[in-house]
């Protein structure tokens, strides 16, 4: 009846996951009870869970990312403390538990923290920057989000029901085959990623379509903000790379479920085929993460420097160059396979060539600052911190791209330090810069600056304190994923990293406090103008938070920095543009399709993991029925009457008129 699922699946004998799981469960239950008791459920359902508004979906992605970032960080704390204690000692985490923690840490951080953070930012920002009302397929967008949430849910269920993979964040066979890992851990991994991977692929399709086909009048390709370009490149990579991941995991699933031999250790299976395939997805994946972050910096640095981005066309060219070359470097993840000099050299050189694109970007950001009038609000601090950190991380990356150096550093803590250097210094700093930058646009009030700056400095210093010692430990020969060790020379560096992660903990606490304090003091942090940072692109021209339809009238774009032009004209002429002729606006209706599909996807995934075959059938059929019902809908849009549009927009214009008056008095702009 319930497949492999028995009471034995619950780790009653292991206090750590049991207590952690109970705390999480009780917290979630408490929140749900509070929501229901307070009568917030109808609002939540109507305005958020079934919303197809790209802005709301973006915010939900960010929320998911931040919660999962916290979960992944707790894993990191456990790993650092275990290694600090495990010199000549067993520590407090036995291998079977420690192995799950580092596997979960990597999986969660990449798929359920970094990815949702970048996709969330793209969701919120791209349609606003393009000057349009929504993405191409709004309901699909909602479905993408909920499928991602399904994956995150499945990974977290594994904390208390069964176990998570013990194979590392990429389940290399034959270790990940049924024979060597008979538990359900790898199955949790496979189905969590298959389901969320479908969501990500749909996001890619959605955004490529949106950026290619739906832009405001006059928004030609070479007038798109750099963030839109990087979003386009990242989503092209998603469309090209995620099917590879899906196919690879499907083959692994066939091996595990039906006794196929794609990657097995007998009967002609080839483990290195998996390694090739997974990295053919895996290396583009790191650019899927970091390109949108590059886009964030390309918005933040010009805004706070008070001048346009330097070398716009170079930035676009470098982005597309990275997009293309990122598909030709995957073998550098396993130079130590012994492929021979020619192959290793070709992939090593291709890898270092990517650094050309990144180098160009770094110089362009530098020259954007040159001649600027730089304001150091929190987003700009993250950006300068990024430039410094990412240059160092890029340099160690190119060192690893040199095969003879990689022969000594592969899989060492030097490698671990390198990819945290670029992912924390690039993706996470970019995410935090983006959150602080666009938060007032999303909610109408700024985040608290003091706590934001404290968070930056603790995280910046904490990053170096944690990962510079790991570089050294790697050079001393310490490999990754060690549950215990007895080499004395590694110990001080591991302890130093353990101390560093405590500084990161303080940084993380500052960020939580920043959000709480900002919400409590939102009235004094309120931004009425919609343009708190003196922005340059279109999203700052609408109200904060923007109305459901984003723009009362679609903007007519005439340059690379449309909003900057509008502002300058307004200040010069001392008046706003004439009031437009308001028309009724058609917007897509909210739909529970995504939420319900994901609900059945969760059931299907869980049933597949535990071999509950009737439930698998039920879940798939139900999900399909939901899709059919959606496809047969009669009414897909609702109309916002012209009068309502006019009322909303006149309020915005009043705020802008007030802003213009203060600027007339100061009179220092341009």
């Amino acid at each position, binding site marked *: 009846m319930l497949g492999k699922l028995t009471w034995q699946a619950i780790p009653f004998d292991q206090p750590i996951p049991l207590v952690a799981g109970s705390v999480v469960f009780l917290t979630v239950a408490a929140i749900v009870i509070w929501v229901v008791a307070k009568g917030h459920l109808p609002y939540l359902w109507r305005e958020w869970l079934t919303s197809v508004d790209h802005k709301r979906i973006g915010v939900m992605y960010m929320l998911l990312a931040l919660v999962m970032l916290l979960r992944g960080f707790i894993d990191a704390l456990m790993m650092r403390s275990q290694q600090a204690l495990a010199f000549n000692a067993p520590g407090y985490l036995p291998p079977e538990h420690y192995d799950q923690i580092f596997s979960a840490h990597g999986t969660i951080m990449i798929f359920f923290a970094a990815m949702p953070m970048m996709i969330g930012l793209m969701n919120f920002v791209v349609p606003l920057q393009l000057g349009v009302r929504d993405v191409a397929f709004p309901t699909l967008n909602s479905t993408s989000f909920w499928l991602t949430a399904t994956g995150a849910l499945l990974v977290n269920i594994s904390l208390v029901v069964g176990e998570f993979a013990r194979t590392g964040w990429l389940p290399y066979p034959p270790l990940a085959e049924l024979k060597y890992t008979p538990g359900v851990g790898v199955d949790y991994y496979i189905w969590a990623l298959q389901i969320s991977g479908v969501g990500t692929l749909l996001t890619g399709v959605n955004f490529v379509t949106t950026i290619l086909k739906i832009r405001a009048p006059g928004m030609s390709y070479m007038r798109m903000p750099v963030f839109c370009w990087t979003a386009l490149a990242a989503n092209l990579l998603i469309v090209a790379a995620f099917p590879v991941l899906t196919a690879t995991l499907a083959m692994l699933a066939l091996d595990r479920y039906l006794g196929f031999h794609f990657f097995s250790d007998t009967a002609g299976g080839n483990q290195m085929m998996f390694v090739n395939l997974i990295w053919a997805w895996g290396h583009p994946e790191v650019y899927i993460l970091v390109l949108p972050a590059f886009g964030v910096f390309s918005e933040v640095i010009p805004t706070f420097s008070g001048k346009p981005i330097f070398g716009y066309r170079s930035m676009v060219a470098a982005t597309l160059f990275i997009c293309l070359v990122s598909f030709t470097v995957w073998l550098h993840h396993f130079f130590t396979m*012994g492929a021979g000099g020619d192959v290793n050299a070709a992939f090593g*050189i291709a890898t270092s060539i990517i650094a050309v694109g990144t180098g160009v970007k770094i110089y362009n950001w530098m020259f954007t600052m040159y001649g600027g009038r730089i304001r150091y609000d929190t987003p700009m601090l993250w950006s300068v911190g990024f430039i410094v950190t990412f240059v160092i991380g890029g340099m160690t990356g190119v060192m690893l791209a040199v095969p003879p150096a990689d022969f000594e550093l592969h899989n060492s803590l030097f490698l671990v330090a390198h990819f945290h250097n670029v992912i924390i210094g690039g993706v996470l700093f970019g995410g935090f810069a983006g959150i602080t930058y666009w938060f007032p646009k999303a909610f109408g009030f700024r985040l608290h600056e003091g706590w934001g700056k404290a968070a930056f400095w603790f995280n910046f210093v904490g990053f170096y304190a944690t990962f510079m010692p790991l570089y050294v430990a790697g050079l001393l020969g310490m490999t990754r994923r060690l549950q215990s060790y007895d080499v004395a020379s590694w110990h001080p560096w591991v302890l130093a990293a353990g101390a560093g992660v405590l500084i990161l903990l303080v940084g993380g606490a500052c960020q939580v406090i920043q959000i709480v304090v900002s919400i409590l003091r939102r009235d004094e942090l309120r931004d009425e103008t919609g343009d708190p940072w003196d922005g340059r692109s279109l999203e700052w021209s609408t109200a904060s938070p923007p109305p459901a339809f984003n723009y009362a009238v679609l903007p007519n774009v005439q340059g690379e920095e449309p909003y900057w032009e509008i502002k300058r004209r307004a200040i010069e002429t001392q008046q706003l543009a004439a009031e437009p002729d308001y028309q009724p606006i058609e917007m897509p209706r909210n739909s529970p399709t995504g939420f319900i599909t994901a609900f059945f996807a969760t059931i299907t995934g869980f049933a597949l993991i535990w071999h509950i075959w009737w439930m698998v059938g039920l879940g798939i059929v139900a999900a399909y029925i939901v899709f059919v019902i959606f496809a047969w809908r009669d009414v897909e849009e609702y109309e916002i009457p012209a009068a309502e549009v006019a009322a909303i927009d006149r309020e915005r214009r009043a705020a802008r008129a007030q802003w213009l008056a203060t600027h007339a008095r100061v009179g220092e702009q341009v």
Partner: protein
Amino acid sequence: MTRNAARPRRRTHELSGYAAGCPRLAMRIAPLLILTACHDGVLDPRGPIGASDGLIMLNALEIMLAIVIPTLVAALFFAWWFRASNTRARYRPHFAYSGRLELIVWAIPILVILFLGGVIWIGSHELDPYKPIETRGQPLEVQVVSLDWKWLFIYPDQGIATVNQLVVPADVPIHFSLTSATVMNAFFVPQLGSMIYAMNGMVSQLWLQANHPGNYFGESTQFSGDGFSGMHFVMRAVPSADFNAWVGTVQRGSGPALDWAEYRHLEKESQHVRPFAYRAVDPSLFRAITTLSLPPGPGPRVERGGAVERSED
């Protein structure tokens, strides 16, 4: 590129000339990383391969630092000088394009990568792990099998084998043939240089040499499951005479002999296995393992949420 390929191959032993400079290697990188007391790891190489790997690593680092340091200094200077509160800085709100700067911006990384590309091309070929180390004498043949979770070292010419302990003559090249009778592992002795994967059903090769007698830490660097942390060993390099004496002791010793039956016992999962030696080894064993005539290890018996019944004999 073609010129490099057409040129007669430089012999690796010429690279051992670099090895003489190996103490300098550690000293050169020390101020960079504030590493004052490093007595092991890849910065303190004890053989020609490690010395050359390390030298190339250092060269790559130096090439990049030549450009990274000025870049970082300039970036921080711009960020500081053009702060809004600095009234002496000239505000140029329209400075967004300069053909000359664009040229430099593209040229610097391209030139660096061209140079580095040469280092990569030559390094990949000269230090290909499969490339033999030239020697007048005979290299030592060692067959390596990674098991759950220990290392089996077979000395085919001596007819002995060891577990989690590798004894080799110093100053003699060692030719390793590696495979795995379980999941993937990687064989690595940090002070001697290059690592390589040990893969099931395949044989990879590696040439290493220890220039000086000593005990060198060795480990697996590819995660292989619950017992992974215990998969380390000591590589003891001894003078040639001592090596021959050690071989004789093992051959005449009272240790067990490694035949197929004994091997099937050995390949079962075990952790933190103490080093020991086999006085004799079946000469067909390594080939049988690589061709899967001897099936790979049985794997674990049970895990949470997936009881796999296997009788333990």
